[in-house]
């Protein structure tokens, strides 16, 4: 998915790869793409994690990450 840059911003792009076994791989995952993928795989803990509501006032306690599968497919080859 590619969008022309707005307000002088560079062209932005997100990419998806759907494997025959049903796995989804994604890169440049925007909040909108994460929501879309979660609709496809509502039980996917990694996607659930990435669609949580959050804001700048919610500091992350790095010593207590959420109990989710630690392998993340949402950022590829970079």
């Amino acid at each position: 998915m590619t969008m022309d840059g707005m307000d002088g911003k560079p062209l932005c792009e997100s990419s998806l790869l759907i494997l025959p076994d049903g796995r989804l791989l994604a890169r440049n995952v925007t909040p909108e793409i994460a929501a879309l993928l979660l609709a496809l795989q509502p039980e996917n803990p990694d996607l659930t994690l990435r669609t949580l509501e959050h804001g700048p006032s919610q500091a992350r306690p790095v010593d207590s990450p959420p109990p989710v599968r630690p392998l993340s497919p949402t950022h590829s080859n970079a």
Partner: protein
Amino acid sequence: MVETMDAALITSPRVPVMPPPAGAVRPRLAMERVGLAERALTDCGICQHRCGVNRLAGPAGRCGAGADPHIFSSQVEVGDEWEIIPAYAVALSGCSMRCAFCITGDESWHPRRGQRLEAATVAGWAAAAIADGRAQSLLVLGGEPTIHLPWLLRLVAAMPEKARLVLKTNGLSTDSARVLLEGLFDVWIVDFKFGNDGCAWRLSRTADYTGAVRETLLWGARHTDLIIRHLLMPGHVECCWRQAAAWIASHLPGVKVSLRSGYWPAWRASLHNGLNRPLSSPEQAAALETARHFNLRLVP
């Protein structure tokens, strides 16, 4: 020899940076270092290759980059490490490595893909995203952002003092670059791509890789909130991940490790046997078992 595929000579006038507000320690520190960073480009030794070229005169060296970067992506993203997302991610073209499987191979190998943007302009977009709650941090990545040291410093100089700044790097910067970045980014995400120099040379044409990246990792653990990222590659769980994991356990126990399973065949991966497929489920399981064996601190 690494080829530079985009060698059009582009020179640009120096753009003056507006001084940050009085009392803004980090922005002021960054601005004070811009001149040193520009001088460093005249005899470039800010990455492991130490080409010794004058990048202020135009694109040169192994990375083929000139004085200022092009930006190929600038948007809010949620695919990176949990503790930094949502992040306003800014991707700079050009890189000091030539990874055959790079997902942004075209932009990383060609430093003039994307568009020229002033650091203050990009900082304004990022600061707005943070201020209105769409992002909680600014993430600068590439390509390899540290090869664009003066622009990087101007970006920090233009960001609000309290903004959370995250640098994602391939770990090939030298001490001369790191000393100018010290104290400016809250978090460094350092890719530990290869567990041995043979794979690093074969797949990224980078010599003496492990020594360089380990130096950055040790520095990062002392000076930043370090996250070590490893992208699992098909067929490289034993030779690369296991070796990296063993070194982390031995030298940086307790440091956060982000293990990524999202490899997909991209760019020139098909030129290498075994890299033209995604990671298998048994490989993922073996990688996790390795992490458990070395008692690594995995973060999502």
